[in-house]
């Protein structure tokens, strides 16, 4: 008999202990996320979809040195380089990437490209919603990766008025 009473009391104590934790946690802030109903929250160094950065003048930082493509273990980066001209300046260096594609069906987000970049042009953003029903849409072009221009900054193509006039004379 005594053992029965003891068992009931013991169970009640266990429930009380468990519920005390539950009630205590109810008063704490939630740590789970609401994604996709709410925004996803990231660690600062999360390696998401790449962003191609611009310098303080709004010019592209990428000088098409191909080091990211060389560092890439899955060879998902494709670049075509071109020379900046007097009339049209795209990047800060002598040349710029005319084409810069990343194939996200191959990218493993290892971050080697970011480490290799000598101009800090390619960085990992926090974009991660890359799923697609069609692999062809997973090849992302430079225009889709470029950081947006800050309001008030110059456009990426800086036209030198004098040089443009000179070129017009030649034609």
């Amino acid at each position: 008999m005594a053992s029965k009473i003891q068992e009931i009391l013991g169970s009640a104590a266990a429930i009380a202990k468990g519920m005390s934790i539950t009630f205590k946690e109810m008063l704490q802030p939630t740590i789970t996320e609401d994604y996709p109903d709410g925004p996803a929250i990231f660690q600062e160094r999360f390696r998401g979809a790449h962003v191609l950065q611009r310098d303080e003048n709004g010019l592209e930082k990428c000088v098409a040195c191909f080091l990211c493509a060389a560092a890439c273990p899955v060879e998902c980066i494709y670049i075509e380089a071109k020379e900046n001209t007097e009339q049209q300046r795209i990047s800060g260096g002598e040349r710029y990437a005319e084409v810069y594609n990343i194939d996200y069906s191959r990218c493993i987000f290892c971050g080697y490209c970011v480490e290799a970049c000598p101009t800090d042009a390619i960085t990992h953003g926090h974009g991660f919603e890359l799923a697609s029903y069609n692999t062809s849409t997973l090849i992302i072009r430079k225009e889709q990766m470029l950081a947006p221009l800050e309001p008030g900054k110059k456009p990426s193509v800086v036209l030198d008025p004098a040089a443009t006039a000179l070129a017009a004379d030649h034609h």
Partner: protein
Amino acid sequence: MADLVTLTINGKTVQAPPGTLVIDAAKRAGIEIPAFCYYEGFSLQAACRMCLVEVEKMPKLQASCTLPVAEGMVVKTESDPVVKARKSTLEFLLTNHPLDCPVCDKGGECELQDMVFRYGAAESRFTEIKHHVDEKQWSPIVFYDAPRCILCYRCIRVCSEGMGVGALGIVNRGVYSEIAPSHGDHLECDECGACIDICPVGALTSGTYRYQTRPWEMKHVGTICTFCSNGCKTTLGVRNEKIVRGNNRDKSGINGEFLCIKGRFAFDFQDHPERLTSPLMRIDGKLQEVSWAKALEAVAKKFAEVKARNGKFGIVGSTKTTNEENFFLQKFARQGLGTNNIDHHRSGDVVTLMDALAGRTNALATVEDCYQMKAALVVGADLAQEHPLLAYQLRANFRHHNARVYTVTRGPVREDQYSVSRVRTEPGKELEGVESLRPMLSQEPELLILFGSSIKGEDVRRLVAFADSLNIPVKYICLVDYSNSRGAVDMGLLPDLGPGYQPVDNPGLTLPEMMAATDLDVLWVVGANPLARYSLAAANAFVVVQEMFLTETAQRADVVLPAASAYEKNGTVTNVTGQCQKLTAAAKTMGTKPDLEIMGLLAKEMKLNLGIWTVQSVFEQIRTQVRGYNIPLPVVATGQAAQTSPLNGRIPVISRPDLIQSASNTLFTSGSLGRYSKKLTSVLEYPGELYRP
């Protein structure tokens, strides 16, 4: 080699002939001594101080690139003082070097980059702002970025010694020193680009390759240059089926590192906007694009119809298509169409030379002989313009072996700079000039004779008789124009000679006779442009042209079949000295087909049995049927040059000297094809003394 000098390098006993430089002796013993300014084959400079080594009993570090070996010498190349000196030298070279490796074209194959990686210090003590000078453009091809330059003088030496041009020099002093063209702000030179390739850093960059790609991003394909007849190997850098650069840094091929403007830069005809990429057919008087099937069907139908009624064919072959294509074309003509009316543009009297030398061995020179033989006689040719590799070899021969060179030309040529005797003659009177050299030539131990197209017919025999009377060993080179001019003759693109100089029973029409025949039914032109020089008399002739561009001949055509260029196909070509080399397809142009495939498909459409028409099987037929071409397959397959020697037997035909005329191309022209290279047409050079306006 009885008295070799014995020395010790890094504790290793090394033997070398007296006079060998320590840097070379070490290299042969497998010990690397880093150096920038030292370059095998050119004069010594001792400018860069990278090759310093420690030699026992010598108080200071010694520059191993100027130090000859001595008996009992003890050299250390990795001792502490040497390592420290190298580090400091590199640090010093980097004082003003901009370190813009990410945008520099040389990045990835830069000698300075490699050296700093291997021997340099990670940090620099220099904190001063680097001296900057803006980049200069010296010509459409050569750009110079002074801050990157390490002043090794390689470009200056390759230009003055290697090319014999001397377009570069050095100006200013100290930190302001820089390389400058001899003509102020621009180059007046061969535009060969040797300075760009030899530059150990990215100071000299090429106008074609600049900022296009990176060395490791390209596919490197070694093939034979398609312009002149010298047969230089050019290693094409290809990215995305586009040729972006040509060079031969790996020293493969008979030309070593040498290339002229054509081999290094003139590949750009390959993606010229006017390149034909679809068959064209004349419909309602206008050339219109049609499918391959339709075009081939129309041609086959016409060929079969004309063949059935015994009509008159005229077939013009090319001096730039491969041996396989030329062989198959003459087979198509002779067996398939039953005609001997086949010819090509003849630019040198190879036939008479082969006949005059019949039965001899060792009478045909190779490119290597131009570098090795003790004396050379150049008759009626501006070698530096028309045959740049042979000229380069002769110059190197003079520099290294003190070769004695004689020239008999109609005007000043570059070989005059170092020739022992130069004779000016009227064209056609060269033999008199040669005769005047008899006393000197008969003193030579051996002689190499190079003769141009002004020596033809009986003159060739007279020249050979003259050389025979000297009683010394003589070798010959009959100069011809284009990459496979020699192969075209060997393969029998002639109305009176079949493959391997076998005479045919009923000689056909020559090229001018075809063009003049008013009753010609079909004119089939494979990779040639005869209408640039002749007019076609037969107004109703059906003209079929296999071409890359809409040339004068193609414009007159009824059917134009777009052909692949030499850089887009496999096969073999034979150079001016009879050396057979392999072409390897580097790129593709959509819509085109190699000429061999076009002819094969035509044969199939006509239901002719001409055998299998793959490159390999046709080459096998050439090896068994063309005399002199029984060359070892491994030599050709591994990309080396195999010497052909078609000298076994007389050639019982009378060559037609009146039909032999060299186009006298300069460094900057190359028949019809040269017009479609933007780089070749963009340089402003005048090509040489003979051509000065």
